[in-house]
C-alpha cells in the first residue's frame, strides 16, 4: 500500500498540469472542429459534423491539402535523417573528452538556443534572392552565375526550409547522444577489448544496445517536434510560393489567421490522430516497451 501511494503522489503533479492546461483547452478546441466556427461572425456558430473535414479533403484547384501532407512527410523525413546521422557522427567523435571539448560542445549547441521564428528570419535573409549571403558565397565559388531565388521557386523553397531545420536540429541529437554515450560504462568496453573485439563489433554489441532506449526515444520525440514546428517555415516563406512549402502545422497557422477556427481545429485534430497512430506503430515496431535494462 505504501508503495502504491508513493507511486501515485510521485506521478500526480506530472499528470495534473497537463490535464488542466493542455487537455481541457484541447478538448474545447477540438470541439470547434465540428462547428462552423468562423470569427467573422461568431453569432453564426453551429454544429456541422464532419463538414470541415470534408472540405479539407475536397479535390479542387485551390485546395493544397494533399501537397501539404506530402510536404510534411518530406519535411520530417529528410530533416530527421540528416539531423540524426550528423548528430550521431558528431557524438561519436565527441564521446571521448579532449581539451576544450566542453567549450566546443557549448559552441555547437548554439543553433538550438535561438527561437524558431528568428531562425526562419535569419535564414530567409541569408537565402534572399537578390542580396543574400548564400548567393554571394556561391557566386564567389563560381557554383552559380546569377543569384538564385531560393525561396521564390516552388522547387527549392521547401528544401531551403529543410536546410535551415537541419542546421537547427543537429545540436539536439548531438547533445542527447553524447550524454548517453558517456553514460555507458567503460568496463564493458574494457572487457570486450580483453576478448579481442574490433571497434565495429564493440559498436554494434555494446554501444548501440546500451543507448538504444535513449536513441529510440530521441528519434520519436524529434519526429513529433519537427512535425509541430511550423514557426520556421512560417517566418521563412509563409508557406509560399503557391503553398509549396506549407506543412500541415504551418497550414493550420494560416487558417487561424484567416479566422476560420473550425477548419483550423479540424486540421489540428487530424494532426493529433496522425501522430498518435504513428507513435503507436513506432512503439510496437521497435518493441520499445519491452526494453528493460
Amino acid at each position: 500500500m505504501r508503495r502504491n501511494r508513493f507511486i501515485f503522489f510521485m506521478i500526480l503533479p506530472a499528470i495534473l498540469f497537463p490535464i488542466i492546461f493542455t487537455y481541457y483547452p484541447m478538448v474545447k478546441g477540438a470541439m470547434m472542429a465540428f462547428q462552423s466556427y468562423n470569427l467573422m461572425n461568431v453569432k453564426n456558430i453551429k454544429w456541422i459534423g464532419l463538414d470541415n473535414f470534408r472540405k479539407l479533403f475536397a479535390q479542387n484547384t485551390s485546395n493544397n491539402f494533399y501537397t501539404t501532407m506530402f510536404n510534411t512527410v518530406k519535411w520530417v523525413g529528410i530533416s530527421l535523417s540528416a539531423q540524426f546521422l550528423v548528430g550521431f557522427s558528431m557524438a561519436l567523435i565527441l564521446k571521448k573528452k579532449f581539451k576544450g571539448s566542453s567549450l566546443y560542445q557549448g559552441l555547437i549547441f548554439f543553433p538550438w538556443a535561438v527561437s524558431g521564428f528568428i531562425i526562419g528570419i535569419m535564414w530567409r535573409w541569408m537565402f534572399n534572392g537578390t542580396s543574400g549571403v548564400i548567393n554571394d558565397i556561391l557566386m564567389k565559388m563560381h557554383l552559380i552565375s546569377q543569384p538564385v531565388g531560393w525561396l521564390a521557386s516552388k522547387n527549392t523553397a521547401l528544401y531551403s526550409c529543410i536546410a535551415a531545420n537541419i542546421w537547427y536540429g543537429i545540436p539536439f541529437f548531438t547533445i542527447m547522444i553524447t550524454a548517453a554515450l558517456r553514460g555507458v560504462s567503460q568496463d564493458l568496453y574494457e572487457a570486450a577489448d580483453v576478448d579481442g573485439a574490433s571497434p565495429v563489433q564493440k559498436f554494434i554489441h555494446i554501444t548501440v544496445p546500451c543507448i538504444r532506449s535513449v536513441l529510440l526515444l530521441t528519434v520519436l520525440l524529434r519526429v513529433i517536434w519537427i512535425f509541430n514546428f511550423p514557426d520556421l517555415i512560417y517566418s521563412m516563406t509563409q508557406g509560399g510560393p503557391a503553398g509549396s512549402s506549407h506543412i500541415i502545422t504551418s497550414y493550420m497557422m494560416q487558417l487561424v489567421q484567416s479566422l476560420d477556427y473550425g477548419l483550423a481545429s479540424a486540421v489540428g485534430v487530424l494532426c493529433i490522430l496522425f501522430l498518435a497512430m504513428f507513435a503507436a506503430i513506432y512503439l510496437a515496431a521497435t518493441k520499445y516497451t519491452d526494453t528493460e535494462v
Partner: protein
Amino acid sequence: MKKRQWTALLLTAVMLAGCGGGNTATGTSGASDGTTAAASEGAADTSAEVKADGEAITITLVESLTSPERTAVLREIADKYQAEHPNITIDIISPPLENADAKITQMLMNQSGADIVEVRDSTVTQYATNDWIADLQQYIDGWEEKGTLTESADEVIHYLSDGAYLIPYGFYQRGLFYRIDWFTEKGLDQPETWQDIYDAGMAITDPSSSRYGYSFRGGTSGYQYADTVYWSWIGMDQLAHPNAAYFLKDGNGATIFTLPEVKEALHFYKDLFKNTCPLDSIAWGFSEMVQGFVGGTTAMLIQDPEVIATCSADMQDDQWALVPFPKGPSGQAVSPNGFAGWGMTSFTAHPEETADFLLFLSNADNNTYFAKSYSTIPIHSTAAEKDVYFSEGRFAMYMQMAEDPDVYCHAAYPQMYEAFATYKTEVDMMYQKYLTDEISDDDLLQWLDEFWTQAYQNEGQKW
C-alpha cells in the same frame, strides 16, 4: 553533492526574489485587485475601475499596426489628455504587429481588456458583425469638429451602412516612387501610366548588374495590385460600387472577372512580373518591396505614404521622386484607399469618457500631428492650413491627387463579405500559381469569378 543542491536552491531563490520581487508584487495586485495597482501600473483587466468617491478611470487603448515611433506619438497625445483630465489614465497596449490582430480578436471575444481598439479596413467588418465595437454616431453628432472632416473620412465612418463604427486616423493612399537618377541616366521621362512603367522597366532591367524595373508584390496581399491594374483597365463606370469593385454595375452579382479587358490586364500583370521584376519578388511582401527600392535593386515602387519617411532617411533627395498613381488605358488611375482608425468596444465600462478621448485623438490638431509623424493622409481638410508639411514637399502630391477625382479614383475589394477572410488566404497562392505557369489565365479568372459569384449568392448584396 550537497553543495550542488544548495547552489541550485540558492539560484532559484535569488531569481525568485530578485526578478520575481518586482513582478509578483504588481502581479498579485493585478490579479486580485484591479483597482489600485491598475490605475498607475496597467496590470490585467483594466477596463473598469470605479471607486466609491467616483472618479479615477483607466482607459485602455490597444494598437494593431504597432511601431515604436507611433507608440511614442500616441503616448504624447495621451499625456496631453491626461493633463487636462487628471482623473483619467490612458494605458496603451502595443502587441507586436505580426500578431496584434489575433490578440485583439481574443480580447474582443473575451469581452475584456480594452476600451479603444485600432480598427482596420480588413477588420472592421469582423468586429462590427460580431457586435464587438460600438456605434459612435451619437458622439459624432455632438462633435464640434465634424464639420472639417474630409469626404474620404466621412465615407469611412459610414463604411458599414448600419452604423458609425470607427473614426479613421488616416489613409494609406498609394503613390508611385521612382529612381529619378536612374531614369535621367537612361533618358526616360516621368512615368504616368502603367504602360510607361512597363516600358521604363524594360529599359532599366539588367539582371547581371542586379537592377530591375519594378518592385513586384507577389507575396501577401499581392492581389491588391492585380486589382488596381484591372480597375485601371476597365474604368470606374462599370463597377457596381467603389467599395465592392469586384462586381459589375446592375449585374446581380456578376463579377468583373469575365470581362475581356480584365484578361488583357492580367496578361500585362504577368508580363510585368516576368520581364521587369526580380524572380524573388514572387514572394515579396511590404518590407521586401520597400527594401528592393531603397536598397537599389528596383527602380519603381508603388506604396503607401509611410514609405516617404524611409526614403528620406535612407536615400539622397535627388535620387527619388514621388508622383501620382499610374493610369491605365481607361484614362483613370484607380487604387484602394486603405484606412485604419479607432473604434470603441461595445463592452467598455466607460463609454462617455472613452468616446471623449477617442474624439480628442481625432480632432484636427492631434490628428494632423499624428498624420505628419506617422506619414498618413490626415482626416481634416484643415490639415494643409495647419501644417505646411501637407501643402508642400513630397506630401503635396497626395493633395494634388485629391483635387482631380475624375482621374484619381478609389475602389476597393469587397471586404464587407464574410467570404473575404477565406479569400484573403487563398488568393495570393492562386496568383502565384498563375505567375509560375502552374495554372492558366482562364483557370485563375474562373476561380475568381466562381468565388465571388458564390459569395454573392450566399450573402447577398452588401453595399
